[in-house]
């Protein structure tokens, strides 16, 4: 028996335009957020940093903190917030290459973690501070603040730096609460913190301190666990759970009928996009790490004409799978704003936004156009790694078509789209939360079927009004004053015309033989 659908790894011809693996520490779901102090404009990056002193500026790609104008309100605080999570190894790392240009005795120059907000002060509860002081030479302490108490973890360590000498600093807070600090590569702290370390990173001081910072990188790792539900829908009940999913369609592709609804196909109920315009079926919740799979049992590959050669059904545009969508209820082409969307057609599987891979698919070995035997799709996204897999409808195993990393992805809605011209069916839709310690919620089932009571026409609504009826009604009412006047006027006109005619006739007869022109 001809087996048109073969194991993809043997018979599928894949052309990979680009398929690459990034650094495995590129994370999403687990997410790495890097804050650069420099904006593209060459000025301070105010999108990611809060500057508490207008005197802080950028010069020659260095962040300059001038000593002359610095006070205890001179602060430079990151807007990224560290949140405790066991799902990542390291909560935050901060690396800087800098030199302290001025550090008067009695003053302190501070790199702080765990700051409560963008106006945090030194010494507040929750802070972990790397404190540089001038004690006849620069010394470095590490102090944590908890319950209004200063807990010294490292006390005035000599770290081999002096005013105006360049040095590097690397610090990190692990998810196990361990805090490490190294100055010029030399470890000066490796201790467990008495505080969570949650909060912001910032550069503070007590006043009159100056610094030049040539490199500053703060990387916050977070793990998104949005609340959501697992979905498994075969549409056999003729409806779906509207508390978990939603659908929308606008317009058609120009052919009719046009719809997106659940209907029978080959003995099963499916969600059918038929001559559909822009629309989707997708999640009501956002997903971080997830897997989506669904069957495409029917895909219209060719135009269909009726017996009068009128176009009934257009060949369908691709199945569009989008994720990372921020709009809860898009009514336009929401997928354009997604982290990425894939177009799955009869001959192509393409990452549309990232454009890093495009797979040309030999249709004879994958989709059986002649018999319209469909295929199945599975997309998995875990810690930023996206994997797209396909299989023929009758195959048991999926084959990986392409993978990519989405380092900026945090969470979003997941949807299957009709991008404006779609005739295909979806079945066996499954979406699974793959977060570590996922935040699954319970919801009450809500039918997707919308019912509305039809308007009931009354006898009065359906009554036909004829002139006879009008006249009858009028007779019963009697004539209006206007109508009376009109009748009188018309009658008068008739009388006058008739009279005029008669008078004229009599006059002519009387004057009978009068010659023309005689008065």
């Amino acid at each position, binding site marked *: 028996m001809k087996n048109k659908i073969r194991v993809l790894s043997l018979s599928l011809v894949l052309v990979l335009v680009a398929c690459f693996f990034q650094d495995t520490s590129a994370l999403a779901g687990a997410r790495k957020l890097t804050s650069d102090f420099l*904006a*593209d*404009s060459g*000025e301070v990056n*105010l*999108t990611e940093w*809060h500057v508490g002193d*207008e005197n802080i500026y950028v010069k020659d790609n260095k962040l300059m903190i001038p000593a002359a104008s610095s*006070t205890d*309100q001179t602060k430079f605080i990151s*807007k990224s*917030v560290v949140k405790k999570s066991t799902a990542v190894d390291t909560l935050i790392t901060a690396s800087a290459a800098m030199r302290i240009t001025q550090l008067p005795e009695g003053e302190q120059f501070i790199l702080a973690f765990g700051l409560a*907000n*963008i*106006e945090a002060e030194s010494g507040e509860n929750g802070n972990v501070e790397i404190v540089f002081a001038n004690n006849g030479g620069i010394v470095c302490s590490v102090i944590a603040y908890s319950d209004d108490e200063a807990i010294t973890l490292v006390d005035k360590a000599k770290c081999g730096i002096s005013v105006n000498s360049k040095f590097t600093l690397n610090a990190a807070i692990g998810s196990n609460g361990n805090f490490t600090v190294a100055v010029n590569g030399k470890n000066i702290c490796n201790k467990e913190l008495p505080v969570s370390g949650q909060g912001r990173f910032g550069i503070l001081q007590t006043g009159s301190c100056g610094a030049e910072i040539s490199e500053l990188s703060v990387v916050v790792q977070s793990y998104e666990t949005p609340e959501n539900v697992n979905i498994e829908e075969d549409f056999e009940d003729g409806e779906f759970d509207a508390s978990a999913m939603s659908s929308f369609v606008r317009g058609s592709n120009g052919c009719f009928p046009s719809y997106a609804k659940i209907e029978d196909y080959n003995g099963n109920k499916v969600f059918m996009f038929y001559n559909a315009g822009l629309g989707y079926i997708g999640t009501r919740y956002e997903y971080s790490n997830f897997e989506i799979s669904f069957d495409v049992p029917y895909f219209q590959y060719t135009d269909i004409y009726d017996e009068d050669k009128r176009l009934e059904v257009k060949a369908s545009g691709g199945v569009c799978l989008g994720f990372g969508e*921020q*709009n809860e209820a898009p009514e336009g082409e929401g997928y354009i704003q997604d982290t990425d969307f894939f177009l799955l057609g009869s001959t192509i599987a393409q990452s549309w936004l990232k454009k890093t891979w495009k797979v040309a698919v030999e249709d004879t070995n994958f989709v059986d156009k002649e018999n319209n035997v469909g295929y199945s799709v599975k997309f998995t996204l875990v810690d930023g790694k996206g994997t797209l897999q396909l299989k023929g409808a009758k195959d048991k195993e999926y084959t990986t078509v392409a993978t990519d990393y989405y380092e900026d992805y945090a969470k979003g809605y997941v949807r299957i789209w009709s991008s404006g011209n779609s005739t295909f069916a979806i079945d066996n839709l499954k979406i699974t939360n793959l977060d570590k310690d996922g935040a699954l919620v319970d919801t009450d089932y809500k039918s997707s079927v919308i019912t509305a009571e039809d308007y009931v026409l009354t006898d009065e609504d359906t009554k036909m009004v004829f002139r006879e009826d009008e006249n009858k009604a009028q007779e019963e009412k009697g004539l209006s004053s*206007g*109508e009376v*006047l*009109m009748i009188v*006027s*018309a009658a*008068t*006109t008739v009388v*006058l*015309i008739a009279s*005029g005619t008669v008078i*004229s006739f009599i*006059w002519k007869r009387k004057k009978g033989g009068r010659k023309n022109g005689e*008065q």
Partner: protein
Amino acid sequence: MMKKGKKYLAILLATAMTAACLTGCGGGEGGNKKTSSNKAGVDIEIAVWNSGIGIEWLENVIAGFEKKHPEYNVTFSDSSNIKTVNASLGMADIDTTDLYLTYVSREYEVMEPLDDILDATADGDQKSLKEKFNATYLAGAQSEDGHYYSLTCGGGTLGMVYNTKMFEEAGITQLPRTTDELTLVCDTLKSYGVTPLCHFVQGGYYTYMTQVFMAQYDGIDYYTNNFYSCKDEAGKSPSKDVLTKKDGRYYALKAYEQFITPEYVLAGSNSKSHTEIQTEFLNDKAAMMFNGSWLSYEMRNLGSSDKFAVMQTPVLSSIKDKLSTVNDDKLLRKVITAVDQISEGKKQLSDYASGEDYKIGDTVISKADWEYVTAARNTVASNFAGQVSFVPTYSNSKEGAKEFLKYMYSDEGLKIYADTVQNPMPIALSTGETYDTSKYSAYAKQHFSLLEQAENLPDMHMNKRHAIFNAGASDFAEVEYIFSFCTNNAGEQMTAEQAWKLVIDKINDDYETNWLKNIK
């Protein structure tokens, strides 16, 4: 003889037939034209812009006026499109309007002076209208020749409207008093997963917030008599130096740069319409939106006014540059708290007195600084000059129109307006009593309270502004700074410095080549 006879007969027949036709035709009223029940009397025709406050108030005022003045018959036509309302303005031969309630700017040649209305005391009132009007509003309403050609009949006060529930959930108990503190509030909201701000396309209503910042930084006198009069300190007017001066506008940009950022602003704010964004705001998509008192009228249909409140516009943190004894934002906030407590009646000014100066804790605040901060704090955004009444010079019923205005601005008329739209006007009641807002929504009450406390009402639509502002000039030379600060498109993002440079470049390009030439 015969010819004459025929002629008379034809005329008689034609007359009879014409009469027959006309009696068969019915009259009708169509479009947005309303007639009153008082068919007899002198006609007064009103053209009104149907803005956010609707027209129900006008119907109610007309009813009250006709009851008091049966000798008049008032009709009105309305449209939500200002251009439609103003379509015939100036066309004396076809415009039959006797009174406009709309927005126009500086069309003095077709406007009748209303000085006599201001000097008059309406029936039942105890003061002249002039005495009832807010002084700073009136100062801005006066044109350069000293006359008053139009007076407010709508608009309202504006402030930062906030979702009290979202604030509560984020643990915010102190409303932001300064722009630095507003940034802190945005940061706090964001850390709780709440989108702090939203606005609609083309900067939303922030332009009104900017007017407050300008007046706070430069003082209301400079704002009215220098910037918008385009008059420099040497008295030269118009003067490009006024437009290029690094004044409150520059510091407003520096403030916006801190809190109008991509992560603090609701996605879609730069492209969605006013209605779309307002609906999203009212549906908890963002915690704050700069909006106006008219929102109360629009919220009534949604039944959602309980969770929304309005805060006074935060004071521009940069005013510290003008102060000698207040040099950090935390101290500035403390002074503002003291000013608020005095306004609310919780404290007296004497509670802070220290000789000729004042004291907050151990810190002495100079008298000048205290007054500067008080004036800044009591500066309220408004756009009362955005909807005005005026009588066209060619009206056939000027006396009637003015009588109508006298009634509209009388205590009785003002109460009808206030009760219908729950929107404040910069006109006090002549008796000295305050408006009875006991049945108004909490949101509406707050706006009335804002206006009561207001010392200054900066309004960029004021009549006093120099003609150059009708010739193309504007405060920021049409630079869309709000868009540039919060766009997600990195290529279009600007810093405050870049935005200011662009403003100066545009002024330098257009001042002489376009604006000066276009001044009428």
